[in-house]
């Protein structure tokens, strides 16, 4: 009897500890569904979806105000992932928001930069380095390729260049000897 009570007590204590641990370990901030959607979005922060960044778009999707096919940088893969998460059917990207294209990096032509700081103010991730009247430089590692710095530049000295391929970034490609199975989004579109 004593043993029973003791072991039950132990069990209760243990599960209490476990729950406490779980509460800390799996703590979620804010709305979990928004977090999950946001973690699928590419964080380019370009605003092509029609919202002021990835997070606001995630909130709009969660609220049912925006569709899941409005993010061109996320591409088809992103739409499929969102569809899976939300239990919806995948669909092709909405062409009104733009088309999926290879990732590019902003490069400032440092000869012609006049140091006006306008690009710096536009960059959503503070990836541009520079002070007033000094030439600016893009930190390649942090640039998301959102293109938001292009329009404000008064002297058109920012170019978007493709990311150079080297041995470190090279990937084996999809085997060519067989036609690729049609992917989910295309099947829906057809």
């Amino acid at each position, binding site marked *: 009897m004593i043993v029973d009570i003791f072991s039950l007590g132990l069990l209760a204590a243990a599960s209490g500890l476990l729950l406490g641990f779980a509460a800390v370990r799996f703590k979620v901030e804010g709305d979990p569904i928004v977090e999950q959607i*946001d973690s699928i*979005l*590419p*964080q*380019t*922060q370009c605003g092509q979806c029609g919202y002021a*960044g*990835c*997070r606001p778009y995630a909130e709009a999707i969660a609220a049912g105000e925006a569709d899941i096919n409005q993010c061109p940088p996320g591409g088809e893969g992103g739409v499929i992932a969102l569809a899976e998460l939300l239990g919806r059917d995948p669909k092709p990207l909405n062409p009104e928001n733009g088309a999926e294209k290879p990732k590019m990096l902003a490069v400032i*032509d440092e*000869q*012609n*930069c*006049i*140091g*006006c700081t306008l690009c710096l103010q536009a960059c*959503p*991730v*503070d*990836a541009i380095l520079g002070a007033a009247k000094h030439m600016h430089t893009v930190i390649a590692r*942090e640039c*998301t390729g959102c293109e938001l710095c292009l329009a404000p530049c*008064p*002297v*058109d*000295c920012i170019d978007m260049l493709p990311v150079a*391929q*080297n*041995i470190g970034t*090279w*990937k*084996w*490609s*999809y*085997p060519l*000897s*067989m036609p690729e*199975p049609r*992917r989910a989004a295309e099947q829906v579109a057809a």
Partner: protein
Amino acid sequence: MSGLFAFHGGLKTVRHKTESNQTPIQTPPLPPRLLVPLRQHIGNPAKPLIQPGDRVLKGQMIGQADGYISAAVHAPTSGVVVALEPVPVPHPSGLADWCVVIDSDGEDRWIDRQAVDYRQMHPSDLRNWIRNSGVVGLGGAVFPSAVKMNLSGHCERLEHLILNGAECEPWITCDDRIMRERAAQIVAGIHILAHLLNPREVLIGIEDDKPDAIAAMSAACAGTGYQVRAVPTRYPSGDVKQLTKLLTNKEAPIKGRSTDIGVQCFNVATAYSVHRAVNHGEPVISRIVTVTGHVRQPGNVEALIGTPFSALIDWAGGYREGAERLIMGGPMMGFALHSDEVPVTKAANCILIAGAADLPAEQPALPCIRCGACVEVCPANLLPQQLYWHARAREFDKAQDDQLFSCIECGCCSYVCPSHIPLVQYYRFAKNEIWAQEKEKQKAELARQRHQARVERLEREKQEREAKLRQKAPAKAASPVGESAQVPLETAVARARSARESVTAPATADSDAAQG
């Protein structure tokens, strides 16, 4: 032979060892120009220590290990550094990578070589010495060896130190020849490894199709307590997991390392280079390369790192009729090269010039018939057919759930597949995509944090501005600050515009000047 165990799966392949293992290792002439890549190992590329124009001596360190998992790179001969630039290297992509280009002065003059007494050295000093000598796994994996010599945190005491002389790839014979010709020096290297790792027993595994190598190694090991064991000739017995199973009957946990079960494994040629580094003060500046297949005189050469493949193919008598494809490594695990103007690296164990008959016929892949042949041969106990479905459909999560990363890319499954499906290509594709996605995720997370920080900062600044504005609202109404700031910007814009235009029209300016 006592105490031998079997592993699951594997293949009997057609052997092509005698083509190249009948003659002793030869030394080709010193090439006039060497291309020494800074990335010849797993981990960070070496950091260059020289500049174009510098004179270097044979064995001089020209690239320094960068970080824990990295290895040093040395000048293979004396001469002048003529360039530090990207040069095509042996890689499936055919891309260029950073190389130190050295024009040899023909003197082949060594640095001052210093042997060290390893018995008197602190283990970490000895490991550092080996690391600075550029020693990496010469079986083809090129993992920095010094890292594997540090057991702290992995296991209490090493049970088995395994020396890998299995050499199971059907065409490669460089380990066979080095064991036959330099057994005593390999054993001298094993003494150093055993001194560092203090194993309970030392096992040397050699496939039983190499009787001469087994005899030579057994003779050299007499009286040392090291045990030479012949293992059945069955591909891929030379993979660490398979060789461990064969020799000890132990299997490492799926996601674990071999040290988790008290095993550490080195290639026999690696033991040889440990000996050269410690007892002779010679860093890794050459390796034995099998040149075989459709060349006139196949064989093994001791080639300086950086020697162009084309020079070795010439040395072997040149291409023979029927040469179809240039492969680095064996036909099972190697990869096709785009050109023979690439340098020998520490990973280059074999240059195979394959003929049409040596390669699996290029046949269009047919649908999988679910025959299960691939499952039977998979030495990693995986379900290759299942992995193939997932990789093909880009369902990478499911592929990972089915242990994609336990696949050793041995190629057994592709070899037996009656539908000629390039299974391993699918696995390589899937692994690469998963790594790339992982990198993308990290980058996205960084962008998310930076964006959030910016939003918060802007909000804070806005509030501060508003607070200030409220303080001196009456004064601000009359001040024309905004306009005066605008003027210099416009003039600057105009200046830059004209500057950019004059730069973009250099052709006309030049021709004008030429006429005038």
